[in-house]
């Protein structure tokens, strides 16, 4: 990410919200009857407010400058963490609660908590076992088995 983009990230965020709100209002125009009136009203107001916020941020950025950038290591860690979040949600969806938790928690403990491989695997297995025993067996919930047709699930 360039310095320029970094500096104007907050302004872009406000502009993006304005665009989303305007899209809501525009799409609501195609709805029949009263269904579109409320989103049109709220979308229009929100888009105008978000534009004003973007303008205010642009003026503030010019006057006071931008906040300092995070160190490269922190940005890498944040990106890796985001990828882990996305992977975890996909893992839980595809592999189910028990297998997904065991695998994704182990990955987390290894990558982010700095544990060695065996303790990380043990941590993941413990958490998964807690869910299985506590929620699956004792509380009687039907834990999501995953959408992948795996033979052991």
């Amino acid at each position: 990410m360039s310095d320029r983009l970094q500096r104007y990230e907050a302004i872009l965020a406000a502009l993006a919200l304005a665009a989303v709100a305007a899209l809501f209002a525009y799409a609501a125009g195609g709805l029949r009857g009263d269904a579109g009136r409320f989103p049109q009203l709220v979308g229009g107001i929100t888009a105008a407010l978000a534009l004003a916020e973007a303008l205010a941020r642009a003026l503030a950025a010019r006057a006071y400058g931008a906040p300092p950038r995070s160190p490269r290591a922190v940005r890498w860690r944040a990106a890796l963490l985001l990828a882990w979040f996305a992977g975890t949600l996909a893992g839980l969806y595809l592999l189910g609660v028990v297998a997904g938790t065991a695998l994704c928690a182990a990955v987390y403990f290894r990558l982010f908590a700095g544990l060695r491989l065996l303790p990380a695997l043990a941590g993941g297995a413990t958490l998964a076992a807690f869910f299985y025993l506590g929620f699956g067996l004792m509380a009687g919930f039907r834990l999501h088995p995953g959408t992948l047709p795996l033979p052991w699930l």
Partner: protein
Amino acid sequence: MDALWSAALIVASPGGLTLLVAGSALALVMGILPGLSSTEAMIIALPFTFALGLNDSMILMSAIYAAAFVGGALTSILFGVPGSSTNLVTQLDGYPLHRQGRTLYAVAAAAGASVVGGLLSLALVVALLPVMGPLSLLFGPAEWFAFVLLGLVVLAFSGSGSVLAGLVAAGLGLLMSTIGLSVITGAPRFTFGVTDLWGGIPIVAAFVGIYPLAEAFGMALRDGPGAAAAPPDATGPAFGAATGAGQIGAGQIGEGLRDTLRHVHAWSLGSLVAWIVGVIPGVGGVLANFLGYALVRETARDRSRFGQGDVRGVIASEAANNASAGGALVPTLALGIPGSLNTAILLGVFMINGIEPGANVFAGNLEVTWVILISSAVATVLASVVVLAAGWRLLAAIVAVPPVIVAPVVVFLGCLAVLLARGNPFDLVFAGAMGALGLACKRYGFSRISVVIALMLGGLVESSYFQALAIGRGAHGVFFASVTAQAIWACIGLTVLLHLLRVRAARRGRLEGLARRGADDV
């Protein structure tokens, strides 16, 4: 009285007491951990409520709701780091007291003030119970519309960030609430042909995504591998003195409790102000905590020791944040409009049990209302007793677990709550999207609480808007027709006016500062 008696029996049953103790313990632990609060604790407990009935769910949630403040005070006093945002100003005087070796004195004062503030605010709610029913009758669709708007406006104006950003966040929440079937015509809106979107954004997925996922992300990012688990002053002389000597502890605890009762001005004024602030929908504990403290400081005869270890600061702050919790229950119980994020989760549990927000929440569920009030009162006392009896030992055990380890537990329990809420794995997609939105809001200064509360109340706002218009035969004058509506609109106008005056005063102060600096340069 029948409802009160029946509720007391429910709370006093073995199952009720177990849930009360479990909820209080979880809240204490979460309150003590910096960065986590009762909100995360309530969301972690959410999956358990699916297996419980409404009353038992409310015992668990109310215990968490009331007890977390007490745990947060401990962290503020011992480490100078607020356990949660509602304990922000406790550290101003609590931490200096700890540095002076009077840790247990400060902890005892905080625990005592929590009990006094909490019980006082619940007593006020109980006193108001008889008028809550008639009060809710004053609210028709036009008044509800205005009242929710008031909450969203006050929320935007009282936050730490920009007002515009707060309003944009509220607008975004309202827009997201329109996803799904229209509450007016039943036609699908913004669903892109995906039937999973017909029911709208599930509220549990929104809570989990916007709050705990974003917080867990922050925790994992802050504490890398090998990050020190020990807090800064946990090994200092004051901590050692406090933890090592039981006889010092007993003396300091007694003195702290006595001083709490002696400083009536601090706890009564702090509680009252915070309670009133808490009643305003959406404002919550942070502002109440700060205002309670500020007012006690400004009205004190001797203000010189505030900020340097004055116990009145600790008492005012802790009484205030506990009292605001009771205040926030008023709009929740009377109108079904959450006074804070935590009461929004309480209301979410109602919705999970098939009870929609609105006046019926109180009128149709008097027994549950009493269960909430009794559980909150008992949990406040219980948590304070635990803190006094074993606070520092508890703290030492809890802070030994680094946040980087706690973070994934929060994530997985949150995801489990999402999966169990409706049994639809597609909700994980919603949680992921809401998580991304929560992170973006946090990073770019858009209020997350505004998004959640607006999302939750969007359906009510829209249906109230159209119902009011129908009553007024399409004329917008109906929104200003009744005295109640006029009073609410006046409050909205007053909020905006006060903000403009504050901005003007700040600008004038800045200009005077610049002029003075210019004169000095010359």
